[in-house]
């Protein structure tokens, strides 16, 4: 098994000349990525995910820490000898070479014979759906096609790890969708280990086996997409995953009480006492049907509808409860009976409540 292990990798950047921007540092990161796994680093721009990727690639020198592939320590191995491949945001195809020569470049560097490497290049071009494009020059291709060539070029030499730095962010949305599907299919087909960097959570959720959420140079949480979404460990992770419904309050004497006292309900004993935030996912907030009694395992909230927006087949409503604005999802059917300004009751199942510090 050749898993990729990142052991306490650390990088400190010197203070830049402008005093206003603080020196950036990547806090020690420890991470193991299994063979054949698709792992994404998700975080806002400037959070250090590209730095981490370049450290893994060897393009940056780490201050501390080690990188292992299987049972080989490759920390001191220069990037050209690591047998990693990388796809950047720009396709970076060499403009003076044909598509075929571009794809074959990695094999050429490995001293593979011309016939063999061109044959391999053509085969790989077929895999990315560019059969017959081999003799063109990069500037004769569209942006999406160029990125496909870049992907083919990265994969042709059978890399141990494929590193990708926001490879689709320069493409338009429909093309991006197509490229994700292509990447997903090819990754499964070749069983290649992928370390993928993105700021697009939809992209990360769609592609990844596991995701690491980063912020300000720190790896906050690692997990499967669903675990991250349903059980974020901190408010930062929650807000980055789009969970905006956060209610500040305190757990004491078996009850959660919000700062403005509009939330007040009993909670289970297992929940740690002290100040905390209640995270409510939009889809767990259910509209209460009239005359129905609140169920034992649910809590009831009352609020005023502030806004209703149509959103890809369902409605997003903003409800004001106390001083808090909660986003919740309604089906079109439910939304038909609602108007802005109306007072409504909503229910939340207790098992869907999630508290973070």
């Amino acid at each position, binding site marked *: 098994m050749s898993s990729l292990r990142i052991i306490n990798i650390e990088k400190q950047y010197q203070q830049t000349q402008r005093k206003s921007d603080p020196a950036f540092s990547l806090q020690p990161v420890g991470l193991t990525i299994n063979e054949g796994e698709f792992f994404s680093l998700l975080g806002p721009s400037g959070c250090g995910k590209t730095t981490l990727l370049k450290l893994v690639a060897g*393009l940056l020198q780490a201050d501390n820490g080690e990188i292992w592939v299987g049972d080989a320590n490759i920390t001191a191995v220069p990037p*050209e000898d690591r047998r990693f491949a*990388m796809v950047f945001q720009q396709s970076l195809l*060499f403009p*003076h070479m044909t598509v075929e020569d571009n794809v074959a470049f990695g094999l050429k*560097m490995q001293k593979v014979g011309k016939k063999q490497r061109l044959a391999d290049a053509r085969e790989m071009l077929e895999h990315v759906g560019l059969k017959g494009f081999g003799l063109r020059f990069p500037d004769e291709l569209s942006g999406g096609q160029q990125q496909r060539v870049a992907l083919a070029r*990265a994969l042709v030499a059978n890399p141990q790890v494929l590193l990708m730095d926001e490879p689709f962010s320069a493409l338009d949305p429909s093309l991006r969708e197509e490229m994700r599907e292509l990447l997903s299919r090819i990754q499964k087909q070749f069983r290649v280990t992928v370390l993928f960097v993105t700021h697009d959570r939809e992209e990360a959720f769609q592609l990844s086996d596991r995701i690491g959420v980063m912020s300000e140079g720190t790896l906050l949480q690692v997990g499967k997409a669903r675990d991250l979404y349903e059980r974020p460990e901190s408010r930062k992770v929650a807000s980055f995953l789009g969970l905006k419904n956060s209610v500040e309050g305190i757990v004491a004497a078996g009850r959660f009480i919000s700062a403005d006292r509009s939330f007040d309900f009993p909670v289970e004993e297992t929940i740690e006492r002290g100040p905390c935030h209640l995270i409510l996912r939009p889809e767990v907030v259910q509209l209460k049907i009239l005359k129905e009694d609140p169920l034992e395992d649910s809590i009831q909230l009352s609020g005023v509808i502030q806004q209703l927006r149509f959103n890809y087949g369902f409605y997003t409503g903003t409800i004001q409860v106390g001083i808090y604005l909660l986003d919740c999802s309604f089906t079109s059917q439910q939304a038909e009976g609602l108007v802005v300004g109306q007072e409504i009751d909503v229910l939340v199942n207790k098992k869907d409540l999630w508290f973070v510090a």
Partner: protein
Amino acid sequence: MTKTRPFLKSILFTLLFILIGLPFIPLILSSVSFGWQWPNILPESFSFRAWEYVLLGSSGTWQAVSVSLLIAFIVTAVNILLAVPAANALVRYPLRGKWLLEAMLFAPIVIPPFVAVMGIHLTFLRLGLTETVFGVVLAHLSPTLPYMVRAVMISYNTLSIDWEDQARMLGAGSLSRFRHVVLPHLLPGIAAGASLSILISLSQYLITFIIGSGQVVTLPILLFPFISGGDPAIASAYSLLFAGIAILTLIGMDAALKKYYQNKKAGAENG
């Protein structure tokens, strides 16, 4: 609008012709004249005496042409070897006092060559480098190198480090990266710098004269005495020859570069 365009074009073309083409006409006439004096508009009699002297006589013209070209090409080759790493360092590495280094590199363009050459001459006398082609080559570097460095720097400025990183990730060592990624990108800049370097080296008079002390005979050395009061017919013939060689060299370089790119393209299409 569309009608004024060709009109404007023809005016510009005429102007260009007057500025560049017209001076050549009296030059040509003068080179084949025999005693052309004021107030005659055209020479009274024609003769190929001057051309015979320049091309066939024992004037040493061809010897001078080959020495000129030899010096120009060696100077350019050395310039390329010096300028590529220099430009790389100046563009890529954050150096303290980089402006000072750049100012020193570009000083020969601003400061009259005569100033520098006097000092160089003294040093070369001590080193025994005067009166040698090698010494002249060294002396020619100072006015030509800045242009080469400038041109290559501009090429480096447009070459993002990402390209090399990408090549690295594909397994290319430093030599392969330079050969397959950096050099193809620099080539247009190098070609531009080389053209300038050849032209400037070819047209050096003062530096060649002082350092070569009359022993290293290039075309401008032969040409100068005839211009400064000798025989205007021969001076004209030499000037034309000089212009011809300069133009031929440039055209030759341009053709070589074009051929290089065509071969690339053709090779790719056939292979």
